[in-house]
């Protein structure tokens, strides 16, 4: 039975769904807070923790996100760095049809691991 939780901070909402196989975070709206890490880091850390260092895949779906400022990338790339150091399995999904997402997330492909544990997928 999936469990779900929602987190909202001003114009950004994140829905977390956990099943036996995976933990999914779906981002919606705009992430343009002055210090987005304050809101995001506990959610991202919590998701990695639920992933159990690779037992479950953690999926972050940005495809419905309308905007993220550069400050939002800081907690995100720190999470990618942390995930790469452990056994975490992490998939970032984005909307390839939106040019800003295609540009932003193609740069994040630098964090993909050769074994596919950390991966990005345009959809």
């Amino acid at each position: 039975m999936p469990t779900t939780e929602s987190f909202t901070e001003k114009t950004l909402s994140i829905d977390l769904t956990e099943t036996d196989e995976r933990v999914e975070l779906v981002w919606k709206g705009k992430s343009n807070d002055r210090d987005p890490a304050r809101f995001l880091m506990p959610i991202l850390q919590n998701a990695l923790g639920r992933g159990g260092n690779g037992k479950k895949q953690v999926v972050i779906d940005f495809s419905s996100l309308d905007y993220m400022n550069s400050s939002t990338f800081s907690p995100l790339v720190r999470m990618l760095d942390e995930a790469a150091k452990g056994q975490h399995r992490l998939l970032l999904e984005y909307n390839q049809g939106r040019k800003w997402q295609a540009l932003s997330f193609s740069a994040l492909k630098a964090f993909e691991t050769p074994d596919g544990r950390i991966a990005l997928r345009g959809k």
Partner: protein
Amino acid sequence: MRQGRFELRLVPDWDTVKSIWDDCHRFLLEHGLDQDQAYALSMTAQELLENAVKYGGFTNPSQRVELAITIASREVIIEVRAPAHRDPVKLRKLDESIQWIRGYQSPFEAYVEKLKQVSAQPYAPGESGLGLARIAYEGQCVLDFYVDETDVLAMSAVHHR
């Protein structure tokens, strides 16, 4: 692309600068830029305004941050003006950040390198230079700045078409 100019004088407050996204985007679309260009340049304006609010040297409540978007025949110029910070080290750091981006063969490489640098550092709020690298890469803009005789820092991003 129709030539034109868009100017705003804003209270240096986070919510105020966030709220002008739609106005910038509409102006750029109305002057013939396509959706993707208008989005990228609205992002550029937003990042410059955020930097001005975060790091500007505001010392009294009457001071403002100014945004000007100029659409010329071959380029779009986005300029944000705010009181310069009194600490010369901040200006030197800004200059170094811009020179660092220019030192790369492509803005993409600079942006990826900056993302890697940020990822390896422990979290602390403050200047990472990520916004400037993003402007160069996603906004496809050339960055520059000067400080005028009234100690106003004018930061520009020029997008050549």
